[in-house]
């Protein structure tokens, strides 16, 4: 999976579309999984440690405002996480995906009716039980909405990752731009758009399974 898209030109366009789509999907899944793995616990932590809120949300907000191409550029010279290739791209995609998940986890939990939280405490729930039995289920819909936004955005941003050699559908787009070839542009853009629509629909469907409350 970690092969560079540019190395597989021999298999013909349809084969290459499949190959690069899988690569793209891999970039997105890996980044989103890691981003959720970081942002969800951090969002929960923020609801417990209010003083940290400003700093963490501020940082995530600032990252979000950096144009993606520039962010890739900033990361390249960094030791360990930088350099050319997939890991730098994944790093940048994670940074972008953090904010929506973080913010929605945080606001989803804080948005729960305080009476429900007090009721949980009155029944003698521990903090862990409060989180697992009450807060996460009631905030699930909001959190999932954050994951959906993050995923759709990442699918788009990941096309730019080809610029630093991460592969994925962006390879077609950059090649198409260089050779002014609209077939190549479409070969990259259409699967990426389809992937974004599917992700949006699929995650939206799961989201609706959770009661709004």
């Amino acid at each position, binding site marked *: 999976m970690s092969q560079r898209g540019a190395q597989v030109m021999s298999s013909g366009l349809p084969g290459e579309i499949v190959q690069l789509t899988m690569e793209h999907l891999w970039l997105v899944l890996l980044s989103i999984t890691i981003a959720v793995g970081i942002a969800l616990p951090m969002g929960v932590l923020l609801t417990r440690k209010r003083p940290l809120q400003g700093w963490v949300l501020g940082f995530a907000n600032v990252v979000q405002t950096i144009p993606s191409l520039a962010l890739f550029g900033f990361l390249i010279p960094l030791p360990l996480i930088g350099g050319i290739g997939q890991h730098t791209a994944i790093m940048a995609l994670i940074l972008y995906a953090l904010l929506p998940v973080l913010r929605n986890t945080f606001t989803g939990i804080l948005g729960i*009716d305080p*009476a*429900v939280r*007090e*009721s*949980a*405490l*009155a*029944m*003698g*729930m*521990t903090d862990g*039980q409060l989180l697992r039995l*009450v807060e996460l*289920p*009631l905030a699930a819909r909001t959190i999932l909405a954050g994951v959906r936004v993050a995923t759709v955005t990442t699918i788009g941003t990941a096309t730019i990752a080809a610029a630093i050699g991460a592969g994925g559908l962006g390879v077609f787009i950059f090649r198409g731009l260089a050779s002014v070839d609209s077939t190549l542009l479409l070969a990259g853009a259409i699967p990426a758009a389809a992937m974004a629509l599917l992700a949006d629909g699929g995650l939206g469907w799961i989201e609706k399974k959770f*009661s709004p*409350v």
Partner: protein
Amino acid sequence: MTPIVEFRGVSYRINGHHILRNLSFSLAAGETLVLLGRSGSGKTTALKMVNGLLFPTEGEVCVEGMPTTSWDPIRLKRRIGYVIQEAGLFPHFTVADNVGLVPKLEGWPPSRVRARTGELLEQVTLPPSEFSLRYPRELSSGQRQRVGVARALAADPALLLFDEPFGALDPVTRLELQNQFLALREQWGKTAMFVTHDVREAMRLGSRIGLLHHGALEALAPPEEFRRQHGDEAQAFLACLDLK
């Protein structure tokens, strides 16, 4: 015998407001103390002092002889059944899951939780076959209150706190549940603190009535004696008895 609950000079102050003023009283086993008072007089605040949702800013509350500040907060809350004002049910739990919550937290086996839940729903006249799987939003407010009562009774606590549990009920059901409350009290000998703003309810249910006014205890007496109180606030409430 040590009282089940004892308030010793309890005051509660928040942002410069005195919400409770120097409350001292105690509750013996099997007794029902009714806290009567207008809206905003501090009844709910006083109840929350008992199970450690709030702590006094002065004085102390002892439960079974030990100050609430020394209790393990989780143990204390699970030992005490609490019927929350406006029920406070979990919107994402079914009726059965709401009622069975504390037993489940206490690690009862599922079959025993289920049996207990069914039994309690019967007792509050919500047939389990019809109500178990509903969500709180699918109930009337009176039905929700009854689920709240069942939930508080679930783990069979020796001490119960009731915060206007019958507030949203029609007078007929209200009377039925009051009678049920009296019967259950006979049967189980539970100790209860019961909050209401309805003086009739206080007279029917209380073994003693404590009258709260601006956070202070204006009177504390058994019902017959409460009738003869002369204070202004007591008179104001007693005047309501003469209506109708």
